């Protein structure tokens, strides 16, 4: 949204800064006076929550790195040292470990939000693609970080995931040795994973900056999926959405704190309290909950290479989503058929998550196969065809119109419906 900057430097010093590096002006225009659709609901608060998660992970991560030793003989013990001996280490380590889960919970909600309200559609394709880039980087960071405590699950997760690359014909085994820096997951692997785990969050931070930039060019999508038509459809970001985002963040932190203080190990695996042993594989190895749907897709396909391809394709397909959906209507609110297929899609993702946590046999295997087929069909068949066959519901002309014209709206709003433009909110 192009808009005139309303920032006024108040004294000589800020004027001096503003004429040399207008960074305060940029922050003011982006996060205070930024015009935002009036009708954003609570599903829109997860962008702010995610930014907060990233900051938490970077801060706790930097602190943990001060006490952690990336060596196969010391890594496991140094994590126990952090938990038992380091001042407040128990708190910082649990915030970091559970923070990964909270981060993924928020990002999945954020992505389903974008999917339902068509936030990936023109002109927000790049915004969506940058989001998928962040998601892939998050997965890399989470996997690399999970290896660092060097427990049994860490070690075998590293072994299984690096072995995925060996499935590539001809060059696969060379790539695997190159990733390992040896002939198995060992000290060289742990060292480089630590180095990369420290790097990736800062790359994420940079892509988040691009993501916000790409958001601020077209402006926010909104639950109606129609462009704001004027001042009656917009409010400034502050105080309206700083307050709403802040309230939602507070609720989110309650959940976060519940896990950290009452269920700190609920999302982990007991086997990771056993030090890594290259001679023994745990009975039942499964990834962290946020990778279970992908793991289910991997195991749904009987062929090794095809399973690996399907799993990576499940993520890669998100990059081209803006061109798979043929419907011009953004919001799912006005798409009766899409709504039903979308609910089924959410069910399929959750079912895949369940199946990924079970041994790959019987009902779980069947569920993972049906779920995988629906997952791909949703993107490759349903979304391209719906735009052709679906009749969208009637859409309002503007965001404000249905509110201002509602026959049973409160009396104080009546004068506005006579054609006079709604009052522009203060500030």
């Amino acid at each position: 949204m192009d808009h005139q900057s309303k920032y006024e430097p108040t004294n000589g010093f800020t004027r001096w800064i503003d004429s040399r590096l207008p960074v305060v002006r940029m922050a003011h225009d982006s996060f205070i006076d930024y015009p935002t659709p009036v009708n954003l609901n609570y599903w829109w608060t997860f962008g702010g929550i995610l930014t907060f998660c990233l900051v938490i992970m970077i801060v706790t991560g930097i602190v943990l790195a001060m006490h952690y030793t990336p060596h196969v003989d010391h890594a496991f013990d140094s994590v126990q040292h952090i938990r038992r001996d380091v001042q407040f280490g128990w708190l910082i380590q649990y915030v970091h470990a559970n923070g990964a889960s909270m981060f993924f919970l928020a990002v999945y909600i954020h992505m389903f939000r974008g999917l339902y309200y068509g936030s990936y559609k023109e002109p927000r394709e790049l915004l969506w693609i940058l989001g998928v880039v962040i998601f892939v980087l998050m997965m890399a960071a989470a996997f690399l970080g999970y290896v660092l405590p060097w427990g049994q699950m860490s070690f075998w997760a590293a072994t299984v995931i690096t072995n995925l690359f060996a499935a590539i014909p001809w060059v696969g085994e060379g790539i695997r040795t190159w990733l390992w820096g040896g002939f198995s997951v060992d000290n060289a692997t742990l060292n480089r994973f630590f180095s990369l785990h420290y790097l990736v969050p800062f790359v994420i931070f940079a892509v988040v900056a691009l993501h916000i930039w790409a958001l601020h060019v077209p402006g926010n999508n909104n639950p109606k999926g129609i462009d704001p038509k004027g001042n009656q459809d917009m409010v400034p970001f502050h105080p309206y959405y700083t307050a709403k985002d802040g309230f939602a963040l507070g609720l989110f932190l309650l959940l976060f704190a519940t896990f950290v203080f009452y269920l700190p190990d609920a999302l982990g695996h007991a086997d990771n309290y056993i030090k890594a042993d290259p001679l023994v594989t745990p009975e039942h190895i499964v990834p962290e909950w946020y990778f279970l749907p992908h793991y289910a897709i991997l195991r749904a396909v009987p062929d090794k290479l095809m399973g690996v391809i399907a799993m990576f394709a499940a993520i890669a397909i998100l990059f081209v989503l803006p061109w798979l959906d043929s419907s011009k209507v953004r919001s799912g609110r006005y798409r009766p058929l899409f709504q039903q297929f979308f609910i089924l899609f959410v069910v399929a993702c959750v079912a895949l998550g369940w199946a990924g946590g079970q041994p790959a046999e019987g009902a779980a295997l069947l569920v993972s196969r049906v779920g995988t087929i629906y997952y791909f069909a949703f993107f490759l068949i349903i979304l391209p065809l719906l735009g052709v066959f679906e009749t969208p519901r009637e859409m309002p002309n503007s965001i404000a119109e249905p509110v201002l014209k509602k026959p049973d709206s409160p009396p104080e709003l009546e004068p506005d419906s006579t054609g006079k433009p709604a009052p522009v909110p203060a500030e």
Partner: protein
Amino acid sequence: MAENTVAGGHHDDDVHRRDFLHIATASLFGVGVGAVAWPLVMQMNPAESVKALASIEVDLSPVEVGQVIKVLWQGKPVFIRRRTEEQIAQMEAVSVDALPDPQRDAERVQQSEWLVALGVCTHLGCVPVANSGDFQGWFCPCHGSHYDMSGRIRKGPAPKNLEIPPYQFVSETKILIG
């Protein structure tokens, strides 16, 4: 040459010379980028000290008939199974055509009493459990691959037989792996 340029009558010469400069600059830049990237990529491969530890000697004398032992070689487990006469006969009798990765037992051993195989499931690298599964050889708990007494894949998602590492008998009761 000089008056041509001044007169501006022979642009072609200049255009060709400039193209040459562009291509030469870009090529040299490409070579430079490659020369810088190469060591940065290659440092990820196994270090010399890691490669130096690439072989081990194993004393077989304490292994009883019917026993399976695990030794660590290059950070990976190696299974050594001393097979009974009956097991050898059984493995040699298996019809090769029906196998997912057809290999005769004789191709997989140097002395039929001793099976030496990498203890790494060819699916995704877990360590299979000895003496379990449908074929009583090995069973991988991760994704359910069954191997026989010859380390051959018989059932499950693994595409290949357990790999045979390079080894040789240095004496009657000692082998060198690697």
